[in-house]
C-alpha cells in the first residue's frame, strides 16, 4: 500500500473511532456496566484495525467491524475478570446479540452513558472527565492537562469512578420524566465545564484547550440529537456557538487579548451566530426558560453589535438579573455587576460586587478585573491599582495578564 493510501486508511480509522467511540462503549457496557472493559475492548479493536485495514482494505461497514472485534475482546475480558456482574447469563446474552446485530443497526445508548457519567452518586468533579473519556475517547493525560491535575491522579480518579459505575448499582437508563430535569442539568453542566476549560485555556498556542471547546460542542450536538425537545439543551448549544463564533476576534494577530466589547465584529463568524440564533429562538418557543438559555440570550445581545454597532447593556442587565436569581454563582454575579455598571454607572456595579462574600473571591480573577475597572472609572486610583494587582496576580493566560498590566500602568 502506498504512503498516501496508508495515510487515508489511518484517517478513516481516526474518523470512525471519533464518530463511533461513544456509541460502541455505550453499547458494550450497557448490560454489564463495565465501562473500563468496554473501553479496553474497543482499544484492542482499534489496534487490530490499524493492523488489518491497511493490509486488507477498509471494511464496507467499519463500525460493524469494530463492534464485532471489540465484542470478541470484551467477552474475553469480562470472562477473565470473573467478577460478579459477569454472570454466565450476561455472557450468553452478549453472544446471542452478537449473532443478530451484525446485520442491522445497533441501538444508540450514548444518552444512557451520558446520564451515567453525570450520575449523582459520582463526584461532580468527575462528571466532565468521565464524559470526555467514555463518550469521546480522550486519554487521561489530555484530560489531566485540561483540568490541571497530574496525569497519574486523573487516571486513578477515572478508574475509581468506573469501578463505582460497575459495582455501585448505577443503572444504564434514561431517568424518568420526574427526575429528568435535575439529571439533565448535571449532564449540561458537565458539557459546559468542558467548553469553559477549552475556552479559558485558549491562550492562542494552547491547542489542547481549543480542541476541548470543540469536543464540548460535539457533545451538545449529540445530546440535542438524542433529546431534541429539551429547550436547555438548545440553550447550551446556542451559548457555546455564540462564544465559538468570536474565537478569531479574541486575539490580535500578534497574540494580544481583545475584550469582547472591543472585538472587531467583522471577524466574528456569521454562520455560527446564525446557527446559535436559530437554536435560541427554537428554545424560547418551547416556553421554558433556564440558565443556559439566559446565558445564550446575553451572548445574543452582544452579537447584535455586529448589526447595530452598539451594546444594549440594559437588556443584558435584565437577563443577568434573572440569571442570578436561578444560578447565583460567582461568575453570574460578577457578570451582573459589570452589566449594571454599564447600564446604571460604576457605583451601582460596585455595590453588586460589595455584596459578594470576601472569602469567596480571594482567588477569583474576573471579580478583581471588574472591580479594578470600576474603581478606575470612579477615579479611585490607588484602590484600583490594588485590584488590578490582584487580577494580574491571579491571571493564568499571559495575554490577559499583559492586557491588565498595560491597563494598570506602571507603579
Amino acid at each position, binding site marked *: 500500500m502506498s504512503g498516501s493510501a496508508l495515510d487515508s486508511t489511518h484517517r478513516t480509522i481516526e474518523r470512525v473511532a471519533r464518530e463511533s467511540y461513544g456509541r460502541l462503549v455505550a453499547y458494550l457496557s450497557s448490560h454489564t456496566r463495565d465501562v473500563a472493559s468496554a473501553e479496553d475492548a474497543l482499544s484492542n479493536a482499534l489496534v487490530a484495525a490499524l493492523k488489518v485495514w491497511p493490509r486488507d482494505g477498509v471494511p464496507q461497514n467499519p463500525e460493524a467491524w469494530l463492534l464485532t472485534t471489540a465484542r470478541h475482546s470484551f467477552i474475553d475480558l469480562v470472562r477473565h475478570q470473573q467478577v460478579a456482574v459477569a454472570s454466565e447469563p450476561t455472557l450468553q446474552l452478549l453472544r446471542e446479540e452478537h449473532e443478530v446485530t451484525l446485520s442491522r443497526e445497533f441501538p444508540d445508548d450514548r444518552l444512557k452513558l451520558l446520564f451515567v457519567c453525570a450520575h449523582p452518586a459520582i463526584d461532580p468533579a468527575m462528571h466532565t472527565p468521565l464524559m470526555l473519556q467514555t463518550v469521546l475517547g480522550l486519554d487521561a493525560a489530555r484530560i489531566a492537562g485540561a483540568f490541571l491535575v497530574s496525569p497519574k491522579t486523573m487516571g486513578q480518579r477515572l478508574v475509581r469512578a468506573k469501578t463505582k459505575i460497575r459495582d455501585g448499582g448505577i443503572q444504564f437508563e434514561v431517568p424518568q420524566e420526574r427526575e429528568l430535569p435535575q439529571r439533565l442539568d448535571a449532564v449540561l453542566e458537565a458539557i459546559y465545564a468542558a467548553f469553559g476549560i477549552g475556552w479559558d485555556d485558549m491562550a492562542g498556542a494552547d491547542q489542547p484547550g481549543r480542541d476541548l471547546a470543540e469536543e464540548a460542542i460535539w457533545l451538545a450536538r449529540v445530546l440535542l440529537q438524542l433529546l431534541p425537545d429539551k429547550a436547555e439543551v438548545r440553550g447550551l448549544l446556542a451559548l457555546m456557538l455564540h462564544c465559538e463564533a468570536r474565537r478569531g476576534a479574541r486575539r490580535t494577530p500578534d497574540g494580544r487579548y481583545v475584550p469582547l466589547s472591543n472585538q472587531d465584529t467583522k471577524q466574528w463568524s456569521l454562520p455560527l451566530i446564525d446557527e446559535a440564533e436559530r437554536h435560541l429562538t427554537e428554545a424560547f418557543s418551547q416556553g421554558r426558560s433556564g440558565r443556559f438559555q439566559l446565558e445564550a440570550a446575553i451572548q445574543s445581545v452582544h452579537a447584535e453589535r455586529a448589526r447595530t454597532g452598539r451594546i444594549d447593556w440594559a437588556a443584558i442587565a435584565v437577563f443577568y438579573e434573572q440569571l442570578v436569581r436561578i444560578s447565583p454563582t460567582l461568575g453570574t454575579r460578577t457578570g451582573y455587576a459589570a452589566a449594571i455598571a454599564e447600564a446604571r454607572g460604576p457605583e451601582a456595579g460596585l455595590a453588586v460586587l460589595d455584596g459578594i462574600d470576601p472569602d469567596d473571591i480571594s482567588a477569583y480573577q474576573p471579580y478583581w478585573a471588574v472591580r479594578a475597572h470600576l474603581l478606575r472609572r470612579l477615579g479611585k486610583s490607588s484602590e484600583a491599582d490594588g485590584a488590578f*494587582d*490582584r487580577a494580574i496576580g*491571579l491571571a493564568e493566560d499571559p495575554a490577559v495578564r499583559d492586557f491588565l498590566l498595560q491597563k494598570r500602568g506602571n507603579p
Partner: protein
Amino acid sequence: MQFALLVYESPDAFAARKSDGTDPYTGAWRAYHKSLAESGAYLGGDPLEVPETGTTVRIKEGKRRVQDGPFADTKEQLGGFIILDLPSIDAALDWAARCPAASAGVVEVRPLAPAAKGRITG
C-alpha cells in the same frame, strides 16, 4: 499541607532582572506575590541569583571537585522557590499555573516532606 513551587526560568526572564522594574515580567511577579500574600497561602520564598553565579561541589574518590555554573545544563534554570501552605495539591497546581514564569519557563510543584525532616531533626 506545605508545597514548594520550584520556579525554572528562561534566559529572557533572568535578563529582565537587569531592568528598572517597570518591565511586564517584573510587574507580573509583583502582582503575583501580592495575590499570594493576600490569599494567606504564602509562607516564604526567595529568588536565586542568576545561574552563572552557581558553583557546584562534589567529593569524588576523596578529592574535591568544584565547577563553575549550575548543576544541570538546561535551558530553563532554577530561578527561585516559594513555600505555600494549602489544603490540596489541586490548589498548589492552580497557583503554579498563575505564576508568571509558567508561560515562558516551568514551575515544578513538590510537597514538602515533614516525615523525612522529622527523621533528621528528631
